[in-house]
């Protein structure tokens, strides 16, 4: 198992956002985390990536309990993510956004950079070339030198994925990547996610509302409702699960 979520609970004030949540993500799979609004999906992603800490329970990533490790340490260990409310570096160009993603993979020393020691220029060129490659991969090369904030939402979402890819993650967390996309863009996004898993061997954990997309690309699905796991399994089972149907459509009285 690449990622194990064990008995995670989290409450905000009196509200139980998550209660005893358990699920696992296998290496190489596309795993979806779904549920109605307010089910605690984004909170779960924030806990996995280390932005929020749980009240109890454990996050096990690559066989190691990572509780208490700050997000930057988890990123170093191979965990990267995108955000539901876009968190691009708005005043930087598209290529620069990707180049920031390369931060982990480059030596960076204060004095090395300041004194322009030999190698810094070469490193910089390498980062640039690697970033161009990623832009090509996500099909945004034509936007290379534009400011990130000027891109349409669909391309901003893709750029966030590219930036996350630049850290060369083993596990990629996607928080509602299809939000605000039209049908064509959503289809292309699905293809991109599939390609990332297949060609780069990246495991994907995706939180998404677009059920068509989720059912099409996921190997396994975990369903959250009011902070609790109500179902876990492959798409076919989930689609038939009475509890899931009830959660989405409302209970019959």
């Amino acid at each position, binding site marked *: 198992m690449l990622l194990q979520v064990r008995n995670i609970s989290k409450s905000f004030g009196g509200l139980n956002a998550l209660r005893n949540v358990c699920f696992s993500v296998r290496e190489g799979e596309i795993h979806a985390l779904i549920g109605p609004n307010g089910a605690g999906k984004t909170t779960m992603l924030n806990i996995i990536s280390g932005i929020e800490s749980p009240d109890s329970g454990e996050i096990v990533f690559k066989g190691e309990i990572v509780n208490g490790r700050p997000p930057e340490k988890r990123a170093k260990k191979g965990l990267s993510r995108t955000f539901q409310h876009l968190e691009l570096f708005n005043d930087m160009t598209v290529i620069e956004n990707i180049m920031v993603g390369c931060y982990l993979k480059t030596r960076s020393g204060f004095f090395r950079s300041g004194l322009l020691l030999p190698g810094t220029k070469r490193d*910089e060129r390498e980062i640039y070339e690697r970033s161009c490659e990623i832009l090509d991969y996500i099909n945004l090369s034509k936007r290379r030198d534009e400011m990130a904030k000027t891109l349409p939402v669909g391309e901003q979402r893709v750029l966030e994925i590219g*930036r996350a890819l630049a850290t060369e993650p083993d596990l990629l967390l996607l928080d509602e990547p299809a939000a605000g996309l039209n049908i064509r863009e959503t289809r292309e996004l699905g293809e991109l996610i599939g390609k990332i898993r297949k060609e780069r061997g990246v495991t994907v954990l995706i939180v998404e509302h677009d059920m068509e997309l989720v059912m099409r690309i996921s190997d396994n699905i975990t369903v959250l409702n009011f902070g609790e796991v109500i179902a876990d399994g492959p798409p076919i089972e989930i689609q038939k699960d009475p509890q899931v149907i009830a959660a989405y459509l409302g209970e019959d009285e």
Partner: protein
Amino acid sequence: MSRDDLIVILFLIATVILLPLISGSSYLLSVGIFAGINALVAIGLTILMGYAGQVSLGQAGFYGIGAYVSSIMSLKLGLPVMISMVIAMLAAAIAAILLSVPALRLKGHYLAVATLGFGEIIYVILNEWGPGGPSGFGDIPYFSLLGYTLTSSQEYFWLIWGCVIIVMAFSLNLINSITGRALRAIHGSEVASVSMGIDVVRLKIKVFVLSAIYASLAGSLYAHYVTFVSPSSFSLFYSILVLMMVVLGGMSNLWGGITGAIIITLLPEVLRGFKEYDILIYGLILTLSLLFMRKGIVPLVIEAIRRRG
């Protein structure tokens, strides 16, 4: 360093070399020297405020450490000036680490508050325990290197502006490197930066330490040029003055600090002619500049040039 930066640096080098040769006025040179000393402190604060998003109200403290440590080491212990200056920079760096490690772990402007207190503490220490107390002490050795002692204003002008150019080149390289990009990223989105593996706290601490080292260097140069120091030069007033330079010059561009330092150092001299009204006009100019040039002078000038070209 970008091509534009390189052009400005070369222009600056030429000016620094030629100015003392053209003008023999030691008054003009000494004003220039003080502008250079202030520029060193301002460059550090520009990186801290403009690129790391943190405010320091205690740069005078590091400036004072630079002046006092270096003076005491060279005068009382007889160490060579260069070595005294390095010790002073280390002392400032250590103080900056001790101050920022707890303050920067907390989100928000705790550093501003912490540095405000720090500056005051240093000021009190210099008054109470510094040689000569509030009246300070003199006979500090002139700057010397490899047995050659600098005495003329010309030589000090070259020395200090040489330091400014080196510090500026170093800072420009830093800002245009992967580190600088990471700093800009933190400005854009802190949560995304940490998710990219950037250790935000560590990076901010490093920048703060760098700004302390620059201020310490400036303080040492000041002490060995004037050869007399007293606590009054290192009060909160100086920290605020440097803050003014950075805000006036524009903190989103590294050249803002230098520009602000030159203007604020020169302004009182230019206004001498107005006699007792000088303070009034000085205040008026600063207030109006801040009201109508929020971003600072340098970013505005660059915008204007871009719009034309």
